[in-house]
C-alpha cells in the first residue's frame, strides 16, 4: 500500500492549489493515499468520492446559509425580530422529498456496486483462509499452506502470494473468536467467524497507476541483505520467485479480538499470474524435512507468543526440549516428545509456572500431526538436551536471530 505519510505533501501545493481543491484526483489522493487495487475497488472509490462531494455540497450550503443568517440577523439595538412565517408547506415538502430522492439514489448505487463485489465470478479459484489469535494462514488449492513471512516493525507477519487478474474466492473460518479480514487496498472486508464459513472474493489488477512495484530479490544473497526479506534467510528463500515483480498490500484484522488484535496483520503480494503455478509447486510441503517444517510452523503460528530468545506471552523455546520445568500446580515434568504433543493438544492441562494458558485450542486443521512432529524436531534443534539434533553448546537459533542484541 502506498500511503503518503505527510499530509502537507500535496503535489504542487504552490501553483495550483485552487485547481487542486476542486479536483477529484487531488481529493482521492488525500482520502485514500493511493490507488485502489482492483477495478471494483475503484468503483467503490468513485462512489465514495461522489458521496464526499455530495456531503460537501450540502454541508457548505447549509453552513453558509447559517452563517449568513447569524450575521444578517444578529441582535441589534432598536431592531426586533421580524415577523416571518413559522411554517411553509411547499418548502417543507421540498426539503423532505429532495433529500429522499438523493438518498434513494445513494442506496441503489451503493447496492449495485456492492453486489458486484460480493458475488464471486464463476472462474474464481477457491482458497481457504483461517484466522486465529493472532495470525492468518491461507491454504492454496494444491493443499499447500502459506509459509512466507515478512516483518512489520520487527513483528513477523505472514505473506500471501496471489496471482493478479485472477478472481480468488476465500473461504474463511476462525478457530477461536471473531476476526475480520480487511484489505484496505481492495476496499473490502469480511468477518471471519468461528464455526461458520464466510466468503470474500478478491481480484487484484495488474499494478495500477501510482502503485509501487517491488522486485523479489534475484539471489539469496540479496535477500539476506534486505530487511524486508530477512525472514527468508537460509533455506526459506524461494527461488521460484527470483526477480518477479509484485505489488504489496496490507491486510489488517478489523474485528476486535484481544491482546494482539493490532498486530494481527498480513501482507498480500500480488505476482503476475504466469509465475503463480510455479510458486504453488515450490511451497508444496511434500519436499520439506521435518526440521524445516517445524521452523516454518514456529514462524507462522507460534512465534507471536513463543520466543526462542526470552520470555513472551508463552514460555521460551530454547532449551525447552528435554529439560525439566515447573508447572503452576507445583508438579514438574521433563518436556519430552509426548509431553510436547500433549501440551499442544491440551494446553490447559499443565501450565508453566508464571504463565496463563493463552494457547489457541488445538484442532487437526490448526496443526496436523506432521506439523507437530516438525515442531518437536525444531525444538530439539534449539535445545541443549536435544539429542542428536542438538547443537553442541549454546545453540545459535536457525533464523538469523544471532543478529539480535
Amino acid at each position, binding site marked *: 500500500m502506498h*500511503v503518503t*505519510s*505527510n*499530509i502537507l505533501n500535496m503535489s504542487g501545493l504552490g501553483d495550483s492549489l485552487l485547481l487542486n481543491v476542486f479536483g477529484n484526483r487531488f481529493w482521492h489522493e*488525500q*482520502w485514500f*493515499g493511493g490507488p485502489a487495487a482492483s477495478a471494483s475497488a475503484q468503483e*467503490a472509490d468513485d*462512489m*465514495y468520492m461522489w458521496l464526499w462531494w455530495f456531503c460537501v455540497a*450540502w*454541508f457548505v450550503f*447549509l*453552513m453558509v446559509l*447559517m452563517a449568513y*443568517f*447569524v450575521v444578517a*440577523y444578529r*441582535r*441589534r*439595538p432598536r*431592531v*426586533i*425580530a*421580524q415577523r*416571518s412565517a*413559522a*411554517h411553509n408547506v411547499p418548502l417543507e415538502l421540498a*426539503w*423532505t422529498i429532495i433529500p429522499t430522492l438523493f*438518498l434513494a439514489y*445513494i442506496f441503489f448505487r451503493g*447496492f449495485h456496486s456492492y453486489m458486484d463485489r460480493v*458475488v464471486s465470478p464463476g472462474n474464481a479459484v477457491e482458497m481457504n483462509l483461517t484466522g486465529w489469535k493472532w495470525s492468518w494462514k491461507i491454504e492454496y488449492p494444491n493443499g499447500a499452506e502459506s509459509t512466507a513471512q515478512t516483518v*512489520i*516493525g*520487527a513483528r513477523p507477519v505472514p505473506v500471501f502470494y496471489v496471482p493478479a487478474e485472477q478472481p480468488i474466492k476465500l473461504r474463511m473460518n476462525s478457530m*477461536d*473468536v*471473531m476476526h475480520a479480514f*480487511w484489505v*484496505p487496498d481492495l*476496499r473490502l*472486508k469480511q468477518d471471519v*467467524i468461528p*464455526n461458520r464459513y*464466510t466468503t470474500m472474493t478478491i481480484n487484484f489488477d495488474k499494478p495500477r497507476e501510482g502503485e509501487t512495484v517491488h522486485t523479489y530479490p534475484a539471489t539469496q544473497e540479496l535477500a539476506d541483505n534486505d530487511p524486508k526479506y530477512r525472514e527468508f534467510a537460509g533455506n526459506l528463500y524461494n527461488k521460484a520467485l527470483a526477480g518477479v515483480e509484485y505489488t504489496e498490500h496490507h491486510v*489488517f484484522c*478489523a*474485528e*476486535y479480538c*484481544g*491482546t494482539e*488484535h*493490532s*498486530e494481527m496483520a498480513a501482507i498480500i503480494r500480488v505476482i503476475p499470474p504466469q509465475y503463480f503455478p510455479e510458486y504453488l509447486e515450490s511451497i508444496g510441503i511434500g519436499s520439506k524435512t521435518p526440521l524445516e517444517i517445524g521452523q516454518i510452523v514456529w514462524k507462522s503460528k507460534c512465534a507471536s507468543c513463543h520466543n526462542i530468545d526470552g*520470555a*513472551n*506471552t508463552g514460555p521460551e523455546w530454547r532449551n525447552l526440549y528435554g529439560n525439566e520445568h515447573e508447572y503452576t500446580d507445583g508438579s514438574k515434568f521433563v518436556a519430552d516428545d509426548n509431553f510436547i504433543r500433549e501440551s499442544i493438544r491440551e494446553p490447559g492441562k499443565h501450565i508453566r509456572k508464571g504463565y496463563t494458558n493463552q494457547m489457541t485450542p488445538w484442532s487437526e486443521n490448526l496443526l496436523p500431526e506432521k506439523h507437530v512432529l516438525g515442531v518437536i524436531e525444531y525444538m530439539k534443534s534449539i535445545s541443549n538436551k536435544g539429542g542428536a539434533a542438538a547443537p553442541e553448546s549454546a545453540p545459535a537459533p536457525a533464523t538469523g536471530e544471532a543478529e539480535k*542484541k
Partner: protein
Amino acid sequence: MSAAHAAAHGAHHGGSYLTPKGGFITTVWDWMTTVDHKKIGVMYLFAILFMFFLGGVAALVVRTELWTPTRTTEAGTITGQLLAPADAKSVATGNDWYNRFFTLHGAIMVFMVIVPSIPASLGNFFLPLMLGAKDVAFPRLNLLSWYIYVIGSMFAVGSIIGNGVDTGWTFYTPYSTTTDPNHWRVVFMVTAAFVLGFSSILTGLNFVVTVHKLRAPGMGWFDMPLFVWAVYSSGVIQVLATPVIGITLLLLIFERLFNVGIFDPALGGDPVLYQHFFWFYSHPVVYVMILPGMGIISDVLAVHSQKKIFGYRAIAYSSLGIAGVSFIVWGHHMFTSMSEVASAVFSGLTFLVAIPTAVKVFNWIATLYKGSISFTTPMVYALIFLFLFSIGGLTGLPLGTLSTDLHLHDSYFVVAHFHYVMMGGTIMAIMAGLHHWWPKMFGRMYNQFWATTAAIIVFIGFNVTFFTQFFLGVRGMPRRYASFIPEFQDYHRISTIGSYILLVGFLLHLLVFLHSLVVGRKASQNPWGGLTMEWEASTPPSEHNFEHEPLCKHGPYDYDTTVPPGWDPKDYPIPAENLRVAAAVGH
C-alpha cells in the same frame, strides 16, 4: 459531594429548592432521600459530569498511547509502551492496557454518561417545570433510578479497580465470554450495563407517564416545548429497547458463569445472534442519546433568537419518526457479518432515518431566518452543534452505503463518525442546555466571555481531534488498535494534540462554572427571555416549583405575541422598544 456545596450557597435565595433543611448532616440526608425531581436532576448532573471526566481521562490515555506507532522494533524491544508498567516484558502487556482503556472509555461514555445524560439531569430538572407540574409522575421511582444508577456505576468502578475489562463496549461474543476466564471483572462490567439499563428504563417510563398525565391545564400536545417532545420520544425508545439489551446481557452473564452455550459457537450457539440482539438495542439507543440533544437545540435556538421555531409540528413528528424508524436499522452495524440480502434491506432502511433528521436540520436553520440572534454561550454551542452534528450525520451516509461500508466498517472513519454525532452532537447539546439553564438551576450567572472562549476552544480541539480520524479511517487504520503502521503517525499526532486542546477547553468550562457558583452575579427570573414555563418559576425554583398552578396561555415559542415572564432587560440587554412592541402586540 458538590450537592452540599450547591445547597449551602443556595441559602441566599430563601425558599428555593437549594435552601438547606438544617445542619450539614440533615442537609446531606435530605438530599440523599429527596424525591424532588430538581434535586435528583442536580445529583445526576454532577454524577454524570464526574463520569464524563473519568471517561475523558481514559480518552486522553488512549490518545497519548497513540502518539507513537508502538510496534515491536527490530531490536526486539518495544517503543511507546506508555501504558505498560515498567517491567512489562512483551508487547502483549502494553496492548492489554490499551484495550482496557478504550473499553473503559467507551463503556463509561455510553452507559454512564451519554445515555442518562440529558434526560436524567436536565430532563429531570426541567421536564416537570416545562409542563407546569410539581414533580414527575413517580417521584420515588425517580429516586430509585438514581440509586440504581449509582449501584450500576459502582459495579463498573468495581471492575475497573479490579484491573478493567478488555472487551470493547460492544461485548462481542465469543471474545467476551472467553477473555479473562478466571475473573469476575467482565461479569461485573456486564452487570453494570445491565443495572444501568434498569435505571434507564425507569427514567424513560417516568417521563412518558409524566408527559401524558401531568401537563398543565390548557397545555395540549402541541403546546409542549420541543425539548419535552424530544425527551418523550427518547423515553419511548428507552422503554422499548432497553429490555432487549437486558436479556442479552443477562444471557451473556449466564454464558460466562454457566456456559449455557447460546452464543458459543463451540456448543452450536450463534455469536452473530448476539450482535443482532446487541444492536437491536444499541442502535435505537444512539437516538436516545441524540433526541434530547436535538430538543435542547430547538429550544435554545428559538429563545436566543427570540423567534418562533420553524415547523414546530415537523420537528415534533420527526422526533417520533426517528424513534420509530430507529428500531429497524440495527443491521447496518453488521454488513460484514450478515447475508447480502439482509445487508441490502438494512442499508435501505438506514437511509430512511436520515430523512427526519435532515428535516430537523433544515427547520433549525430556517428558524434563524429573520431572528434577533444574540451570541450568548448557549447560542454559540447551538451553532457548534449544527456544524458538528451535520458532519457527523452526513458521514453516516457512506457508512450506511453498502459498497463503501465494506471499506469503512470498524475503521477510524466510524470512530470519527460517532464522535461527531455523540460528542459533537449530544455533548455540545448538553453544554448548550447547561449554559442555557444554569442560571435557573443555580440562581447565578456565569462569565459569558470566558464561557464562550472555552466553547470555541472546545470547537477547535474537537475538529483537530476527530476530523483527522476520517482520513485515518479511509486510508486503512482499523479501530481498537494499540499499535499501527508508521504511515499513520502524522494523523494520529494531530489527533492527540487536539484531544489536549479539548482538555483545556473543558477545564476552562469547569473553572467558569465554579466561579459562577461561588461569586457569580445573581440571575434574574428570566435572563434570556424564554417563553416556556420553567421561566415562570422563581430563580432558582422553589421547592414546589410554582406558587400557583400555572396555566398554559400561549405556545412555547410565541415571541410575536407574548412578553416573556419575569423579563428583566438588565440581564438581557434587549432594546426597550423591543419590549414595548412585543407588549403592544401581545396585550
